[in-house]
């Protein structure tokens, strides 16, 4: 009876009003032969107390950055989330409402979304943002799909190998049933090989999908790249880390045409990879090709300023098979969290967070790179992540031993890059302190070959 109101008396009264003998009879339209003739084989119901104990026990079986020092990154980061973000997102009027199809009773959501679009436009230097997509991976593929529509080129799309490997896998999956060729461009020294780019940019290339800072943490030569891409009549779709924009030039300012990315860094907990926040912004001239929901300003019948969902003729519920995308839900609650985060940070806070990441990362990279066992894999400027090569070629083992010692040391890269099977991706956010960095350094420094701890 969890969450139900109806008593047997209610049910009886309702059945009488309906003119039906039993609840079972309400299901008469389902042919008997299709009915399930047994109870579902599911575990028995639990009351709130039992469920709470059960979940607490399951939760305790998991390690967490709360108890294990976290240097994991690769698209999900242990950034600090101010309490105001949790407060706002936990208001029932936000989290238990739905898509603002009725603007008269949804101005809170609509205004918050309009503010979000403004903040994302400012952050990226683009003209317009949508109200979010599922995650960085789906945003990346939507950016690529949009470039096919905008350029009317369907021959090929280029993807730098330094783009998040899971985003690239998503692109491959979406394009498996389509005719466009997906060409992966090599990044032998940690960044895109510009001569390979030049060689592959043909007159039927819709776009280049580039990540900056890229998956290895390195900065890409965006100015040279954008010039080459535009000279070929193609678009640059850039995957961003929003936190980096506290310091780095905005993609709109260096000429990107479409900006996509993972917004988890902006106030969303890591929660094992989702729900997250797919960011997407573009030039104004492409707005009618932009997927996802968009809020727009207008006036009501009394002349009052207000906000509505707009340009809905792009969307599936109006256009059906002609829609720009099949997407229906957005990540409204996480767009809201991002807005509150960005408002709490402001321009100064975003700069400070970015600088903290930068300085701590540079320090950790130098300290770790100086160790006998490790070397810096790519000699390129980095923001908050970097790749280390393990001279012992035993990164998986190193990470396993580190975990025993209470440290998530980094993400081994071999699973996506066989050539980098001796490499580790290390992320350092503003939350990591100098003593924590030293702890990782000290840990690695006492690891003898093959993970055996030196006798002290």
């Amino acid at each position, binding site marked *: 009876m*969890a969450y*139900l109101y109806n008593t047997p008396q209610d*049910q009886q009264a*309702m*059945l009488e*009003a*309906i003119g039906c003998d039993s609840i079972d009879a309400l299901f008469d*339209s389902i042919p008997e*032969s*299709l009915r399930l003739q047994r*109870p*579902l084989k599911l575990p*028995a*119901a*639990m009351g*709130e107390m039992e*469920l709470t104990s059960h979940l607490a026990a399951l*939760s305790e079986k998991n*390690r967490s*950055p709360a108890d294990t020092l976290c240097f994991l990154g690769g698209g999900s980061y242990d950034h600090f989330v*101010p309490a*105001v973000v949790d407060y*706002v997102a936990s*208001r*029932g*009027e936000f*989290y*238990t409402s739905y898509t603002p*199809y009725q603007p008269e*009773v*949804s*101005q*809170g959501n609509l205004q918050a979304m309009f*503010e979000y*679009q*403004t903040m994302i436009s400012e952050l990226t230097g683009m003209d317009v943002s949508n109200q979010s997509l*599922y995650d960085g991976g789906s945003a990346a593929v939507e950016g690529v*799909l949009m470039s096919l529509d905008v350029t009317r080129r369907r021959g090929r799309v280029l993807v730098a190998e330094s783009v998040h490997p899971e*985003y690239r896998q*998503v692109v*491959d999956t979406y394009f498996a*049933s389509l005719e466009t060729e997906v060409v992966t461009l090599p990044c032998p020294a940690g960044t895109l090989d510009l001569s390979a780019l030049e060689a592959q940019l043909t007159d039927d290339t819709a776009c280049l999908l580039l990540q900056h800072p890229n998956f290895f943490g390195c900065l890409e030569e965006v100015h040279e790249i954008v010039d080459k891409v535009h000279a070929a009549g193609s678009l640059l779709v850039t995957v961003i880390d929003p936190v980096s924009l506290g310091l780095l030039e905005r993609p709109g300012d260096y000429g990107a045409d479409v900006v996509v990315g993972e917004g988890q860094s902006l106030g969303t907990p890591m929660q*094992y*990879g*989702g*729900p997250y926040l797919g960011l997407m912004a573009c030039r104004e001239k492409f707005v009618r090709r932009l997927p996802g929901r968009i809020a*727009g300003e207008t006036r009501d019948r009394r002349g009052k300023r207000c906000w509505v969902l707009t340009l809905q003729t792009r969307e599936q519920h109006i256009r059906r098979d002609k*829609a720009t995308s*099949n*997407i*229906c839900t*957005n990540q409204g609650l996480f767009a*809201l969290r991002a807005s509150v985060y960005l408002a709490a940070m*402001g321009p100064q806070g975003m*700069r400070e967070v970015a600088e903290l990441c930068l*300085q*701590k990362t540079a*320090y950790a990279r130098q300290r770790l790179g100086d160790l006998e066992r490790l070397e810096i894999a790519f000699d390129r400027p980095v923001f908050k992540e970097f790749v280390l090569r393990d001279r012992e070629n035993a990164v998986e083992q190193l990470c396993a031993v580190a*975990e025993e010692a209470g440290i998530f040391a980094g993400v081994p890269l071999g699973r996506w890059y066989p050539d980098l099977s001796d490499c580790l991706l290390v992320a350092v956010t503003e939350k990591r302190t*100098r003593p924590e960095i030293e702890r990782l350094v000290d840990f690695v420094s006492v690891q003898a070959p093959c993970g055996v701890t030196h006798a002290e």
Partner: protein
Amino acid sequence: MRNKHATQLIYELSQNGRKAVALPQVDVPERPVEELIPERFLAKKTLGLPQVAEPEIVRHYANLSTLNMSVDTHFYPLGSCTMKYNPKRNERLASLRGIVDVHPYQSERSLQGLLQIFFELQEMLGEISGLDAVSLQPAAGAHGELTALMVAAAYFRDLGEVRTTVLTPDSAHGTNPASARMCGFDTVTVKSTPAGFVDMEDLKSKLDDSVAVFMITNPNTLGLFERNVAEIADQVHARGGLIYLDGANMNAILGVTRPGDFGADMMHFNPHKTFSGPHGGGGPGAGPIAVTSKLGAFLPVPRVRREEAEGECSYCLDWDQPQSIGRVRSFFGNSGVLVRAYCYLRTHGPDGLREVSENAVLNANYLLSRVKHFLPVPQGDRCMHEFVASAAQCKNERGVSAMDLVKRLLDYGFHAPTVYFPLTVKEAVMIEPTETESKEMLDQFAETLFRVLEEPDDLLHEAPHTTQISRPDEVTAARKPMLRWNPSTEE
């Protein structure tokens, strides 16, 4: 209580120099930024973000929230969206440290509790669907549809069959044809009969060897169980095609009948509907899919597998699926939504889940029995979990549209039902009460709707009257899009 001052944009509240956070000092030896990042990469100007103090942020958003209707505050009979109560225990439990503060690239051994949850959820969804293999990866219902269609495409490629067409009924959700197009299929629409069911003759005329998938919603968007569903499935299967079930309406049939038992080969769940995940102002959702065993090999990776060795069981991510379509998003899936669904299912158990559907269907039929006396319900006297009334007569006789009626309901404190969907009913008013409402609330709603129908035409045309705003100019909004704040737009 609503604050009358509360409609300024946060940008309009901004004052230079205000801030809400104080970050720690750099505690490592600091180097000049330009030494770490060459100047060509650095921003040349300050970001255009608002500058506000913390109390202002709280007041701003708290006030904004009061301008929303929500399930916590209002009856929300939005057809097709299953706006049921969002249990507070689920929010608390999904916020446990070991669940919310967990990095996606932690090792599997550091995630045994979470992987156990997902393994058990896979098993439970398999049982509820009557299907064999489950992927939790898709991020939303439409994403699940798309993923399942990719699975179907991979299956036919593997068989060496060229199938180019996806059939959808004219009453289908718009996501169905849109997903099919994204997957490279042509879409063909199958008509409904006047009674609201798939037109079998029309289906037969469109069913040939080019058909890959027939996408069906059952109960359909009219709230009716497709009584011919088994025959439809037989016919599609006989031509080598697959049946996809749009699981949006699972709230009607939990434990009563199972998609796998009525012929579906694949389906998606909407945990944010059926299993009470909060809708979050538009998202997040999740869209796990279930498929028959012959399609299981094509599901996205990874899935969770249980292993037993020496009496100990453990859970791991299974990447070893050479025929898999790959990934449809980054990381594992919408974990937070899935954990809430798990809590919901564990709270209910088999009997509780069946009671959910029984009471959802009872509530809908009760409301139907009251509403039909003053607002016609073209498809009859009975429904499953929702029904579609029509304001066509009202529109013809008085010029009062479905939109006018539901806008007036807002004045009385009810969220509007879905209108103008499905497309097969003129002036459609689609009402889904859900099981988490009382008879008294349903009575009040019916009485209010009756009262609204008695009100003068002009009052209805201009409704709502008591909300913060009324009847925004959506045409101008679309013609001259203003999609972000600029200083010039300040009031």
